């Protein structure tokens, strides 16, 4: 059938579509909506922190219970319902088939189901705000026994317990994890089996590599947590004692189960965004990515290490001191591959010819901010200083300096970079630059000063510091106010982005096929790519980052164009890098 003249009903085209592009868009839009929710929660409790007791515009008075619930849900939403869908699912769905030169995912139906399960999970989470007792307020780590209905939960009322904020949040997270697992299986199978002719493993763009590595990390680390979530759920609704020390359970087990997933999760969020960096940097430096293969090896090393460092979140939880030293060493070791990746990205700039377009700005901002986030990680990786810094604003600031650039700068870079490809229209550059600079400064205004609050001993998840003499003095009160005002500016700034999306979709004229002169395969397809992506399957002749190759007339060679020094001996190239996989094929 002809993919272009082929007609579909609204439902099968935009809602229950199995087309990877539509599903990717759905994930992105869902992520943006949830980011709105999470941002609003952040606004409410930031306001409460700076002006305690005051009634909050657009909300009203915030009591301690709702403060806890909001802080918890802000964390949950930003990690599981913004970071994961936007970076992993959205980018994975949009980019993988296009970048490896195929028509769609391996299992399109599974792909669609995964989105709708994710949607359901979001609905469950939001609904938990409206059940009696409100949403769960025990921190996004959900440490039992607090999350297991406390210590008196011997025989709870089943339905009351089932429709409590805690159970609903556990269910929502479980559904979300299932959706992401389905997506991950899809990514891996697609990338392994459906690559275009000549797309050998070491001709795959970094972002595809990283999304797949992230999916593997996710899949292998999430299992114990799923099991543990079942146990926690039964503690809530049936009154079992899996985590109840009074009945032989042990809360420490949950801490391990949670962080065994919770730490690799950080890399699941980080790797796709790093992939975006790796795609954008060479395009605007007009220079091959520095150390393409080593970067992939470093990422694989970090993937292995990432499941060996989880307990550095529990240094003060009373774990075995020798284990703490071990995990401290592991934490320090895992800083090495990521430092290597970032240095390679920076090295890509040297000797380039740098264009400061909007995506490039976001990428440079990402690197700059993540520098602060990563380096402050050194303080926390040291288990001794963590005794003091744990659960203070130093930690909060540290992970906002890592996760905010990661999730939002990474996402915005991707949007400004690939928007022309998936809509055929270009975003407004002026608004884009304004959006970037305001976000950049507002973010630093929000968080930088809070490092000092943290070092002054200000601890987390407190709705009212009036009792704590250490932080109830200048300059820390002023710092709080500065942070809140900047946070409000930061949130308002994002409306520039939405407005930019809107007018660009409505007003802008059809963009050209390849506005940035990028060499990867997705720019070969029409923009927007039709159902089925490519007119004919492209054939790949060389790596993804062939810019300013000496002796070529163009300053970039698309992957499907044969350069002067490419040998087109496909069969040879195809299997040169294959591991023993190809040696042990079916007899």
């Amino acid at each position: 059938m002809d993919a272009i003249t082929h007609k579909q009903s609204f439902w099968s085209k935009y809602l229950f579509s199995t087309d990877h592009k539509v599903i990717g868009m759905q994930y992105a839009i869902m992520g943006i909506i949830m980011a709105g929710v999470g941002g609003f929660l952040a606004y409410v409790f930031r306001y409460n922190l700076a002006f305690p007791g005051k009634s909050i515009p657009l909300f009203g008075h915030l009591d301690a219970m709702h403060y806890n619930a909001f802080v918890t849900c802000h964390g949950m939403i930003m990690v599981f319902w913004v970071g994961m869908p936007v970076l992993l699912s959205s980018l994975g769905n949009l980019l993988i088939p296009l970048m490896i030169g195929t028509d769609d995912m391996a299992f399109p139906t599974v792909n669609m189901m995964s989105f709708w399960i994710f949607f359901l999970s979001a609905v469950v989470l939001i609904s938990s705000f409206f059940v009696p007792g409100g949403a769960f307020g025990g921190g996004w780590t959900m440490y039992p026994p607090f999350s297991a209905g406390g210590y008196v939960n011997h025989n709870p009322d089943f339905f009351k317990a089932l429709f409590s904020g805690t159970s609903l949040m556990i269910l929502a997270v479980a559904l979300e994890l299932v959706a992401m697992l389905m997506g991950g299986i899809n990514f891996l199978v697609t990338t392994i089996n459906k690559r275009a002719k000549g797309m050998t493993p070491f001709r795959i763009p970094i972002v595809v590599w990283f999304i797949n590595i992230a999916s593997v990390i996710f899949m292998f680390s999430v299992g114990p947590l799923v099991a543990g979530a079942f146990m926690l759920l039964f503690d809530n609704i049936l009154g079992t004692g899996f985590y109840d020390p009074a009945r032989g359970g042990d809360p420490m087990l949950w801490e391990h189960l949670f962080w065994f997933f919770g730490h690799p999760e950080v890399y699941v969020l980080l790797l796709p965004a790093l992939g975006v960096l790796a795609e954008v940097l060479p395009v605007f430096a007009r220079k091959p990515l520095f150390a393409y293969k080593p970067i992939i090896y470093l990422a694989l090393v970090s993937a292995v290490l990432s499941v060996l460092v989880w307990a550095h979140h529990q240094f003060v939880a009373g774990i075995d001191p020798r284990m703490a030293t071990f995990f401290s060493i592991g934490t320090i070791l895992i800083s090495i591959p990521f430092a290597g990746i970032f240095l390679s990205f920076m090295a890509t700039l040297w000797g380039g010819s740098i264009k400061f377009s909007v995506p490039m700005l976001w990428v440079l901002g990402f690197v700059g901010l993540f520098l602060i986030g990563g380096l402050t990680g050194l303080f926390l990786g040291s288990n001794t200083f963590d005794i003091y810094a744990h659960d203070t604003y130093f930690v909060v600031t540290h992970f906002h300096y890592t996760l905010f650039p990661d999730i939002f700068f990474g996402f915005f870079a991707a949007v400004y970079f690939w928007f022309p490809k998936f809509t055929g229209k270009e975003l407004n550059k002026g608004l884009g630059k304004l959006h970037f600079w305001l976000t950049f400064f507002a973010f630093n205004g929000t968080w930088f000063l809070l490092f000092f609050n943290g070092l002054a001993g200000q601890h987390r998840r407190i709705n009212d510091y009036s009792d704590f003499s250490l932080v109830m003095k200048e300059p820390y009160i002023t710092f709080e106010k500065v942070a809140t005002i900047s946070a409000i500016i930061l949130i308002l700034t994002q409306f520039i982005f939405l407005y930019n999306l809107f007018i660009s979709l409505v007003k802008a004229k059809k963009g050209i096929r390849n506005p940035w002169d990028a060499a990867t395969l997705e720019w070969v397809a029409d923009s927007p790519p039709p159902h089925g992506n490519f007119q004919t399957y492209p054939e790949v002749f060389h790596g993804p980052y062939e810019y300013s190759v000496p002796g070529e007339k163009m300053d970039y060679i698309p992957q499907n164009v044969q350069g002067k020094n490419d040998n087109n001996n496909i069969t040879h190239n195809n299997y040169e890098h294959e591991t023993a996989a190809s040696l042990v094929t079916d007899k």
Partner: protein
Amino acid sequence: MNIFPDNVSTYGQEIDNLFWLIFAFVAIAFVISLFILLYPLFKYSSKNAPKATYITGEKKKHFKWIVVALVLLLGSDFIILYAEHDAWGQIESVPPKADVKVGIIARQWNWIFVYPGPDGILNTADDVIVDDMNSSLHVPINKNIVFELRSQDVIHSFFLANARFKQDVLPGRTVVRWFNLTKEGKYDISCTQVCGVLHSKMRNFVVVESGDKYKHYIDSLYSANGRKTAMK
């Protein structure tokens, strides 16, 4: 530069020193990488450098710079590990001989302080329990105070910022830790694990006082014979 609350414990100083040591490494690393990031933005901007040079970075002579940087980072990391190891051992492993033993019990939402009775042994019938919001733990100055941390209900975390000491308190297990406070005064104890609605009200004090004042306080407790709650 006094960015920390003033330190009153014997091991607190080591943690502050550790901070400044790490800060030195971090500052150097930050400046260098900022240079690596910002310098090319001027040197190699499309105005100054219209044509990019083709460097894949997979050749040894290019990639060796990354390796050098990583080796330096690893080295400084292990210097940090070495520097911190001593303090970690002091705080987390077996405590020294106790001059004073106390029990500290967390519950929603205050800290309960248990002084051993005249027999000087904890968890016996004559323990004196102080169980009040905003109550204070009285300790003598310059003595090794060894305390047993327990929780009655959910996870709490004992945080004494001035002593640079923090320890999560999980129900179902007893954690024995110690500190030695060197400055008289009244310092906040807070709970840093979210433990419910009044988490932010879970604040008590440590009162560090001279030996005889402490003795006087304990005697008054014995005569008043405290309020026995919570413990069995």
